[in-house]
């Protein structure tokens, strides 16, 4: 298995890793919610969130570089957001009386900060929680079964599908793939079609294997680990700190 896993580093051992997945999901969910509802100019609040993330990161012993590298996924989205800056009219300026900056820039800076903090939270969460535990925690917190099943199948088959596609690409290139762009487009189109049919057939075979073992439409998930004393000792101060940053360090309630 050569691909990096979705939940790489989740089998390290650290105080954070040993907490119940439910705990971690709650705390990071709170972090994301308070972060996206914070006004873009509330720098002290964002400093608080980042400090919280950095402490968690240090405690978890997940390499910083891992989080930074994966956080690059937000870059294309930020580039899109940056394109929209000039289209914000100065008319909206009244709402941002605190600074004299271009309103488009303020919006952009808000998007950048919020997406960076949120993405880092998710990356850290996935690095300290094995995916199956993450799913049972979501289940315990009331996520619909159908969504859980979807995620669980995705986790199980994603790498298989990536590998299958790589095999197809290799088989294509091994036969001196080249030619004009029209031909290349056609080939890629056919590959996608084949890939779809193969995945569809695999789905059918998997379904047969499931019904053979008495499947009746509900995918059973492992019970979530219960929350113990140390979990509460982590949840309460963390949530308190984050909500405190949100309320006391940011001006106003609105975005």
């Amino acid at each position, binding site marked *: 298995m050569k691909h990096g896993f979705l939940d790489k580093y989740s089998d390290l051992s650290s105080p954070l890793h040993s907490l119940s997945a439910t705990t971690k999901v709650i705390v990071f969910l709170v972090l994301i919610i308070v972060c996206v509802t914070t006004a873009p100019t509330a720098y002290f609040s964002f400093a608080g969130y980042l400090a919280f993330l950095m402490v968690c990161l240090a405690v978890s012993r997940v390499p910083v570089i891992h989080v930074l590298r994966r956080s690059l996924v937000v870059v294309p989205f930020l580039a899109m957001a940056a394109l929209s800056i000039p289209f914000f009219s100065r008319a909206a300026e009244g709402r941002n009386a605190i600074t004299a900056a271009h309103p488009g820039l303020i919006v952009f800076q808000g998007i950048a900060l919020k997406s960076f903090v949120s993405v880092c939270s998710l990356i850290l969460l996935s690095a300290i929680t094995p995916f*199956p535990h993450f799913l049972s925690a979501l289940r315990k917190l009331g996520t619909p079964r159908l969504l859980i099943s979807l995620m669980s199948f995705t986790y199980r088959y994603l790498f298989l599908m990536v590998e299958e596609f790589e095999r197809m690409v290799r088989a294509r290139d091994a036969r001196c793939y080249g030619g004009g762009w029209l031909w290349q487009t056609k080939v890629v189109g056919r590959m996608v079609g084949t890939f779809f049919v193969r995945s569809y057939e695999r789905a059918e075979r*998997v379904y047969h294997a499931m019904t*053979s073992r008495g*499947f009746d439409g509900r995918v059973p998930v492992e019970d979530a680990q219960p929350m113990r004393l140390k979990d509460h000792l982590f949840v309460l101060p963390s949530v308190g700190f984050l909500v405190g940053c949100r309320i006391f360090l940011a001006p106003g309630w609105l975005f």
Partner: protein
Amino acid sequence: MKKVIEIESLHFTYPDGTVALRGITLDVLEGEKVALIGPNGAGKSTFLLHLNGIFRGDGSVRIDGLPVEKDNLKAIRQKVGMVFQNPDDQLFCPTVFDDVAFGPRNLGLDHDEIERRVSESLAAVGMEGSVKKSPFRLSFGERKRVAIATVLALRPSVLVIDEPTANLDPRSRRATIALLRDLHDTQVIATHDLALASELCSRIILLDSGQKVADAPAAKILEDNTLLQAHGLV
């Protein structure tokens, strides 16, 4: 002896018009290990899928005397443990534990019983150490063993296995054969591996073009070179 599987003139045609089974009649007795051999496209896999009602052709299929019909499917699927050729189709849960527990959970067993069955089945295939792993972190041979464990957990009265040794290296192949020999249930094994058939099975059924061509004690079929050659097996 008791008949575990009774099949009478079974016909099956795929939706696209391919005729895959043309009137198959056979019985399997309790405790028998039967090899189902035949060239590619003979209809072996199609036939196996009829044994637990995933496909329903014309003709009659009975398991332990119970006809394979809509109302009996749950009971039938508990009696027939079906191991598919590709373990990646069979293992779809995030952890090995969940996968082996999948069948027992569907049977509605309680927590302790589920745990007992999981550890018992994994022990039977020598994979106790992998309970918490994800199936995709196991080697192909290991996944194959876990796939067998997932059906053992249902305590079936007959094990149905499609190509147990395909894609295995010689050592894993030996290990799988030894494993199947030690599991003393009734078994129906579709295979191209004649050595496996001779080592494991007392009886061989030869299929070709959807028909039963021969059905005899293993030794008798394996020494009939003309027959094997005529159906592309040697």
